[in-house]
Every structure is written in structure tokens, then in C-alpha cells.
């Protein structure tokens, strides 16, 4: 059995040797180079574009402006499965190039040149005349009467509002003896900062267009490119090679539509669009900044009588993934600490800022920042131990969500808390760090998180798999679920080998998705690849196995029910005799003059379930008060992701998520000039992504309660590790200093302000 073992990544060797081919490696050198002309105002209209000087630059092929987009095919960009119900379709508010400018960095033109230098020169030589409108950067300002209107059909700039009511909040708060705890919590705009910037190239052949892109979602991109170009979707082919990370940014149509459009304008010539890092921060996608207002009414025994959340999610200039993010966070609020009387209002609001889309955690890191900071505040106010307070109020075993039918089968939260506390020696440290004085103080903090795998029943969940047997008994496996660095291909290899009964090295997962040949699947998001693909892998492998054994029965004259495949050998189960190898069988099957067969299987699983994936973080810090600095001393994440397919890869996944959480909690934020809306730190020097030197040794521990709905007992682990890190750090700083920092990140700027306000400086 391979599931549960630390087999090496199937792609490790090539990646370490530098042999793995990424999009840029595959693009032919004859490609024209495209660069996007971005607006230098935050809100307004392009009046004219003077390209005359730029056109004179040698090597410039053609310059396109927003006025060249004659056929206006508005398209949605979110990497969601398409809905055949118009009411559930994503908002189609983008054009490949736009005259209406809605944020500083909007796409108003494109240069196509023979090389990068000519393209860069031409961009600098273009002069744009604008009509400027007032702009708004703050999410609540944008909702006010008289705020600049960013999209004409959305009054008060509200893309969507959802309200949830449970019980009766107004009546419940009248209960005598309640303590009211109220807080405002802010998370910043951050960016994914995957190593490989977004890149794609497009070329035409035979009236069809092929787009090769660094994307998480090739089949979705095919649909969106078709929509954006106004052509049949079957005329679009999307190829996804290995990618250098995505984290959700590439769960969106970025510049695939524009690149395809430019290619078509140029008669199908190969065009490459490679986004510079600076543009990646501004003109791709960012994480929604969410401001949360929470009021809790707490009984003297530390239980909740009533709770209220208002969340304001900053969508930026276009709808992209829209309200899905705030809605997911709102759901987490209602479920994590269930309470009979709840009011939740979530607003997703347009501002003149970069477009927010999917990013690892999809609203949960924001929600957990607010909820777990608030939980700490409530425990402190009630004079209760923060862990005991959580244990008392967390979702109980047996809880079933009425909408998703998700069920908490095991005592996951307590098990994870226990394991994490033990790993970091929490109890001793918590006691030792109470009531410190002096300039340098230590603290330890806890935060839990809620997450659920996949998107059912909000959206379609489907996975298709194809297995093709080779002469030697090895096989190719194809899936629409994509390898984006998380190790999916390795997990699929382990799963296939186990179900089919073949050695690991005989399973060749085809890593590259090509929508012309890869079975349909919607791609990498929602931490669903292993869970979702598991269903179609098991189903398809069983189907193939049945065909193989049937053929074996014919060859060996044995009844099929007495045969099995064990490590690539057809075995008679009654006495364990090895009858023939799978290679011998397959060769015979292909070349048989009596009964030639190509043994393959292909099947689709529609998945109508979904699974909770919970856990926690504990962080230990040292705060240097005069220096306004936090040093992270130790940190542990505990997860119940069900059965681990590959524990070593699971650990690596948790480390990556923790690293992202450390940046989110301590240093990262994209900032904008209040006077112009211009992003100020859209580069890796001024955007403070954390480095190795900012990390202690990262610890990951697991509780493995097999998920009963899952084909392999597994469930989400891609996004969960990033969800509770930031609030755990915040809560550790709170224990150390008594100062609550409610605006992430807990960086020196925010600490300086808070320490001054609290009289520590």
C-alpha cells in the first residue's frame, strides 16, 4: 500500500535538476512580446491615447488601445464552475481593454513588439489623456451616500449583501447578567507572491486558438477565453504546464483573454504576455481586505447568548470572485462557535483598488483574524482561560450544517488543541508569561480555524479520470485536477497504485492538462484536488481493474472472482499463485490475433458531499516594546485533514501555509497613496513578504480521523494551514503586552501606534 507513506514527489527530481518545463520554457522564441498599458489614475475615462511616438520605436509591431476593442464581449473572470442558471453566473464586467478606468493600474492598452526592450520603450512613450472622476479607496466610505459610483448598476457600490438571522438577537440580548464585548478587526490587502509570475502565450492554427498559461484552472480558462473573444468554446484549447505556484491568483482568468485577443488581432501570430512582478501586485488579483465588526453577549458561565457580525469586504474595482469570499467567512462565523441567536450581515463592496479574487483560505484567514482576535478579547474580559473558553464554545461533535450537510464526526478541535499544546509546551509557557513587565516580554497565543473542503452544494463538484494501460503494464493517468506545486500528482499516483494493485513506478500521472485531450475537471481551488480526484481515481481504477481481470480470466481460464492484481501481477487468490504479470497480459491484449484490446477506462464522478477540515495554531513570541518588534519564537499548526495520503507532503503543505500566515500576521500589506490611489509598494522590497530569517522552525502535527465521505479518507489541507496563524500571533502579542492589535499585520507601524495609545511608549 502506498497511501499513507512518504513516497518521494514524482516531480521532485526534474524540478531539482531544473529540467521541469514551465510556460516560458515552452514558448517558441519567435513569439511577439506583449506588455499591458496600465492606467495612471484611479477612476475616470480614457479620452485619448497618443501612440505616435511609441509606434516609431524600432521593433514595435502594433499598439492596441481600449478604442480598438470594437466588439465588446464582457466576461466574468472568476475561476468558478460555470452555472447554467443565469442567476448563479459570475458577474461579467471585464473587457480585454477598457476605456472606463476603475483603479490605478486598469488595462487600457497593450503594446506588441518583437522583444521586451522595444515593448518597454513603447510603453514609456505612450501618452494618455484622461477625464478624471473622484475615487474611493475605503470600503465603508464607498458605501456612503454620494460616494463615487464605480459600476452603474451597483448603488452604494455594493456588489452583494447577504444577511443571516438565527433565533432572535434583539430579544436574546435582554437576558439579565450578560457582558457585551465589541470589537472592530481589519485585515489588509495582500498578494499571493507565487514565485512564477503570471505568464501565457497564444497562437492560432486551423482557425482555433491555443493558449498556454500558468493557470490553476485550464478547463475554466477555455470557457472564459471563448466568452471574452465571442467564439465557440471548442475553438479554444488551453494548455497548462507545470506552474510555479498560484495560491488562488491563478484561479482566475488573468491575461489569457487579452493575450488571445492580441493574437487574433495579429492574424494568429504567436504572442507571449509575461507579467512583471510589479504588475502582478496591482493588475492580477489580491486578497480581499475585510473589516469586521463583532458584538458578543456573554453569560457569566462563558457561553454565548447572542452574537452579531458585520463584515465589509473590499472587492476592488471588478467583481471577480465577488461575494463568495465574504460569504464563506460569514458562514465560518456562524458555525465555529454556534450560538442560538445570531445576526450576520456581509457586504462586498467595490472600491477603486486592485481587484480582489481567490487567495489561499478564501475569506477564512480574514474571518479567523476577526473571530479569533475577538474570542481572545471575550475570554480576557470574562477572566477565563483562552483555551478553556474556546473548548466550551466550539462546534460540538455531531454538529451538522443545515445547508451543506457537513458533519463534525470526531472531536477534532479538542484533539488538535491537545496535540498542539503538547508540541509547544503551551501550559507551562502560558503560566510563565502571565503578568510580565519590562521592555522585552514573551507571550503565547492560540487560534483555531474553520474550513470546509470543496464547493458543494454551492457549485458543481465533478472529477473525470482516464487510465490507459501500456504494453509493460504501466499506465497513464489523466485528470482535470491540476498539480500546482502542492504535490497532487504524487497523491494521485499513490491512490492509483493502491486501487489498481500496481507498483508506484508503473503509474504515470500526466501532469500537463490540455483541454483538447484531458478529461473535464475544473481545476485547483477550494483545497479540493485530493478529495475530489480521489473519487474518480478510485472509480476509474476499479473500472480498469474489472476489465483487466475479465481479460485475465479469458487468458487463464479462471473465474474472475478468483483473480486479483497484486503489485502488478495477476494472482489467483485461492492459492496465491502468480499467473502472469500485468505487462504480459497487456502485451497479449494489444497484439493478440484472437482478441485484441486496448485496456483503458474513463469515468466521471459527481461529488455531492463536502467535508469539514479543522485545526489550530499556537504561536510563541517575544515582543521588544521600545523597538516595536515581534520575534516569532515558536509556532505549531495542528490539523485534522483526515487520512494523510503522504505525510511528508502534508507537512510541507502545512509549512507553506504557515509561512503565508506569518507574513499575513506580521508584515504584509499593500498600501496606496490616499491622494492618487496609486499602489506604493508593489515590489518585493517594499512589500514585506516574510523571509526564512523571519521564521522559526515550523512545526506541523496531525490528527488523522478518516473522513467518512471521502474516497480515501482524506480532506482539505491546501488552504487550512494559512487560516489561523495570524490571529495566534496577535493573541500571543496580546498575552505578552496586554495590547490588542486589531488591525493586521502586527508590524512595527501598528505596534508603535498601539503602544503609544496604551501608554507603553
Amino acid at each position, binding site marked *: 500500500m502506498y497511501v499513507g507513506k512518504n513516497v518521494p514527489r514524482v516531480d521532485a527530481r526534474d524540478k531539482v535538476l531544473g529540467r521541469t518545463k514551465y510556460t516560458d520554457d515552452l514558448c517558441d522564441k519567435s513569439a511577439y512580446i506583449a506588455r499591458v498599458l496600465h492606467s495612471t489614475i484611479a477612476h475616470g475615462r480614457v479620452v485619448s491615447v497618443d501612440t505616435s511616438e511609441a509606434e516609431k520605436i524600432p521593433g514595435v509591431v502594433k499598439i492596441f488601445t481600449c478604442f480598438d476593442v470594437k466588439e465588446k464581449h464582457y466576461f466574468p473572470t472568476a475561476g468558478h464552475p460555470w452555472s447554467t442558471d443565469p442567476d448563479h453566473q459570475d458577474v461579467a464586467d471585464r473587457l480585454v481593454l477598457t476605456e472606463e478606468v476603475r483603479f490605478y493600474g486598469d488595462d487600457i492598452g497593450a503594446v506588441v513588439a518583437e*522583444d*521586451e*526592450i522595444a515593448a*518597454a*520603450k513603447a510603453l*514609456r512613450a505612450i501618452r494618455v489623456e484622461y477625464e478624471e472622476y473622484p475615487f474611493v479607496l475605503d470600503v465603508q466610505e464607498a458605501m456612503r451616500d454620494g460616494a463615487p459610483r464605480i459600476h452603474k448598476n451597483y448603488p452604494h457600490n455594493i456588489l452583494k449583501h447577504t444577511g443571516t438571522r438565527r433565533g432572535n438577537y434583539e430579544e436574546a440580548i435582554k437576558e439579565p447578567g450578560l457582558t457585551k464585548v465589541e470589537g472592530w478587526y481589519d485585515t489588509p490587502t495582500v498578494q499571493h507572491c507565487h514565485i512564477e509570475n503570471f505568464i501565457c502565450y497564444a497562437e492560432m492554427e486551423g482557425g482555433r486558438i491555443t493558449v498556454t498559461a500558468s493557470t490553476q484552472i485550464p478547463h475554466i480558462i477555455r470557457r472564459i477565453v471563448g466568452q471574452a473573444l465571442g467564439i465557440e468554446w471548442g475553438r479554444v484549447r488551453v494548455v497548462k504546464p507545470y506552474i510555479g505556484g498560484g495560491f488562488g491568483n491563478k484561479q482566475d482568468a488573468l491575461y489569457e483573454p487579452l493575450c488571445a485577443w492580441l493574437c487574433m488581432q495579429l492574424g494568429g501570430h504567436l504572442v507571449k504576455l509575461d507579467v512583471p512582478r510589479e504588475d502582478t501586485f496591482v493588475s492580477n488579483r489580491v486578497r480581499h481586505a475585510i473589516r469586521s465588526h463583532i458584538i458578543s453577549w456573554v453569560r457569566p458561565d462563558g457561553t454565548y447568548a447572542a452574537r452579531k457580525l458585520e463584515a465589509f469586504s473590499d472587492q476592488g474595482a471588478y467583481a471577480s470572485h465577488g461575494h463568495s469570499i465574504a460569504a464563506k467567512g460569514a458562514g465560518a462565523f456562524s458555525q465555529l462557535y454556534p450560538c442560538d441567536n445570531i445576526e450576520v450581515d456581509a457586504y462586498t463592496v467595490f472600491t477603486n483598488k486592485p481587484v480582489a479574487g481567490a487567495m489561499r483560505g478564501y475569506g477564512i484567514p480574514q474571518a479567523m483574524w476577526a473571530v479569533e482576535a475577538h474570542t481572545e478579547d471575550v475570554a480576557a474580559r470574562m477572566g477565563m482561560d483562552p483555551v478553556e473558553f474556546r473548548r466550551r464554545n466550539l462546534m460540538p461533535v455531531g454538529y451538522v450544517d443545515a445547508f451543506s450537510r457537513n458533519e463534525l464526526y470526531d472531536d477534532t478541535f479538542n484533539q488538535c488543541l491537545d496535540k498542539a499544546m503538547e508540541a509547544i509546551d503551551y501550559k507551562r509557557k502560558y503560566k510563565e508569561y502571565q503578568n510580565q513587565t519590562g521592555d522585552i516580554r514573551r507571550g503565547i497565543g492560540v487560534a483555531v480555524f474553520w474550513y470546509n473542503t470543496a464547493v458543494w452544494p454551492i457549485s458543481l463538484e465533478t472529477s473525470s479520470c482516464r487510465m490507459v494501460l501500456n504494453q509493460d503494464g504501466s499506465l497513464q493517468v489523466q485528470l482535470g485536477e491540476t498539480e500546482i506545486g502542492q504535490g497532487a500528482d504524487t497523491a494521485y499516483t499513490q491512490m492509483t497504485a493502491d486501487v489498481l494493485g500496481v507498483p508506484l513506478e508503473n503509474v504515470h500521472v500526466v501532469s500537463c492538462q490540455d483541454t483538447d485531450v484531458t478529461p473535464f475537471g475544473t481545476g485547483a481551488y477550494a483545497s479540493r484536488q485530493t478529495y475530489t480526484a480521489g473519487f474518480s481515481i478510485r472509480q476509474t481504477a476499479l473500472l480498469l481493474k474489472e476489465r483487466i481481470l475479465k481479460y485475465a480470466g479469458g487468458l487463464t481460464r479462471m473465474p474472475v472472482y478468483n483473480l486479483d492484481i497484486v503489485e502488478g501481477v495477476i494472482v489467483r487468490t485461492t492459492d496465491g499463485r502468480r499467473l502472469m504479470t500485468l505487462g504480459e497480459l497487456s502485451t497479449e491484449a494489444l497484439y493478440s490475433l484472437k482478441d485484441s484490446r486496448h485496456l483503458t477506462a474513463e469515468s466521471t464522478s459527481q461529488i455531492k458531499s463536502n467535508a469539514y477540515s479543522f485545526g489550530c495554531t499556537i504561536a510563541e513570541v517575544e515582543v521588544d516594546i*521600545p*523597538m*516595536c518588534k515581534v520575534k516569532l519564537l515558536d509556532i505549531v499548526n495542528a490539523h485534522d485533514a483526515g487520512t494523510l495520503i503522504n505525510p511528508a507532503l502534508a507537512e510541507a503543505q502545512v509549512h507553506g501555509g504557515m509561512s503565508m500566515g506569518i507574513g499575513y500576521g506580521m*508584515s504584509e500589506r499593500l*498600501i496606496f*497613496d490616499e491622494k492618487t490611489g496609486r499602489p*506604493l*509598494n508593489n515590489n*518585493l*522590497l*517594499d512589500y*514585506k513578504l*516574510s*523571509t*526564512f*530569517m*523571519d521564521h522559526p522552525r515550523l512545526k506541523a502535527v496531525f490528527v488523522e480521523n478518516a473522513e467518512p465521505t471521502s474516497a480515501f479518507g482524506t480532506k482539505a489541507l491546501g488552504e487550512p494551514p494559512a487560516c489561523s496563524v495570524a490571529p495566534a500571533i496577535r493573541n500571543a502579542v496580546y498575552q505578552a503586552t496586554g495590547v490588542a492589535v486589531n488591525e493586521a499585520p502586527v*508590524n*512595527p*507601524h501598528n505596534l*508603535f501606534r498601539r503602544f503609544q495609545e496604551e501608554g507603553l*511608549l
Partner: protein
Amino acid sequence: MYDIKALYEAESVEHAVALLVEHPEAQIIAGGSDILVKMREGKCAGKELVSIYGLDEMRGVSFEADGAIRIGSLTSFSHITGDPIIQEHIRVLGEAVDMVGGPQIRNIGTIGGNTCNGVTSADSASTLFAWDAVVEITGPEGVRRIPIQDFYIRAGVVDLKPGELQTAILIPKKAYEGYQGHYMKYAMRNAMDIATTGCSVNVKLSEDKKVMEDVRIAYGVAGPVPMRASGTEAAVKGRTVSGENVKTFAGAVLEDIRPRDSFRASKEFRQHIAVVLAERALRESIRLAGGEVDE
């Protein structure tokens, strides 16, 4: 791909001077860790470059006849950190340049480039200011030497005339003998970062370690160019080693420095940090010099 009009490779210092005279618009490139970044941003796009990177005569640390430490302008940061002369006599400079960027940048970046850039945040600059460094410049008229304070004219502009290049940085013997110092870089993360404020302090104690015979302090990012805080130095020079005098020293800093608001940090924050750094760097310098601060 970089937008370089032409690249001329110098074979000697004289040849470099000749090339610079011949191509007055050309920019000097050493390690390239600044110029290539600027070029990519479009700021120096399309320029001619004179490369001096192959000039080994400008590389390395040695003693002059008068005991001054000579650091060739092409000496890389990682070389300086590991150099035995630096480690023995001005260890703090090795520590300061070890805080530049990351390992790759420290292998390619040079101390000459760091100073010729003229930026206030250069990690080498505040320590060089605090140790009375002298800059050696070679040009068509020959060699001249000027104090580093005079080398910096304003933000991004240094005293290099047409045809000139910086060939060495010198630390005079009287500037290092008997001194111990400490550099503190305040940045938002522990690597790959630019200084929010940098502070370099050094001290020369009396034989009995009770008196601060000399104290020098310099800052980066406390003004448009690196600067000495002379008033601060005067406030404690010749005074006894004591907690009170350390406080006096740190408190005096705000009279000398002129930080500004930027998106990177507020003026108020930089001022606060400058004071904390001054105190901590002086305490550490005293400790390194064998003194003890009584509270």
C-alpha cells in the same frame, strides 16, 4: 533582457578613466546590483555602461604605509565581512555590510557601488561616516582623497566629476585604533530589506574603561544622505560611562537628525527608533570596548 546601448569593459583604472572621458554619458557598472535594477525600471534604460568589474586592482582589503585600512571599491560585501583585517580592526563594518540584501547580493554588490549610489539607506555608509572614512577618487587629473561627508552631495548625487571613479575607501589609523563599535539596522524583516533607519556608534574608552574619550555616531535614513550626529557626540564626549550619560546621548539625537515621512515609515516612528537605536548601539559599543554601564 536589459536595455543597454553599449558595454565597454575597462582593463585597468587608467583605461576606465579613458573610457569615461571618451563616453561622458556612460554609467559605471561594478556588480550591477543597483544599476541593472534601475535599468529594468526604465530609469537608466538605453545607457552606455563602462564595466570596471574585472579590475582586480580595486579589490581587497590592505594596509596603507601610514596604517590606514584600504578597502578597494570593488570589494564585495561578503569579502569585507570575512576579511581578517576588517575582523580585527573594524569588525562592525563587516557586520554592517552583512546586513545588505541576501547572500547573492552580498557576493556581487560592492562597497564602492553602495557608496557611489548616494542613497541614505546604504548599510555601509553610516559605519563609514562613523569611522571618519576617506574616499579615494581617481580621474583624468589623478588621485584625490576627500572625507566621506564631502563625497555625499545630496540624495543620489556624489562628488564624482566627469571621468572620475571611486577607487578605494580608507579608514585612517587614528580613526580606528582603540575604537569599538556597533551597527544596528532597523528594518521590517530580518533579511532582504532596506533600512528604515540605520545607526552606527563607536566609542573609545579611557584605559580604566570609565570615561568615553570619544564617541561617534552616524545614521542612515535620518536625512537625505547618511549623516553624523555631531551634537549628540559632543553631549557625552569625555564623560563617564554611565546609564545616565547613555540616556543623555540617546536623548540628544533628535536635535541632530532630520528624518521624514514616507510610505516606508512615519517621521515620528523613525525618530522614536533613532533614539532607541542610539542607546542600544552605544551600550553595545561600550560593552565591546570593555566598559560597563552602571545603572
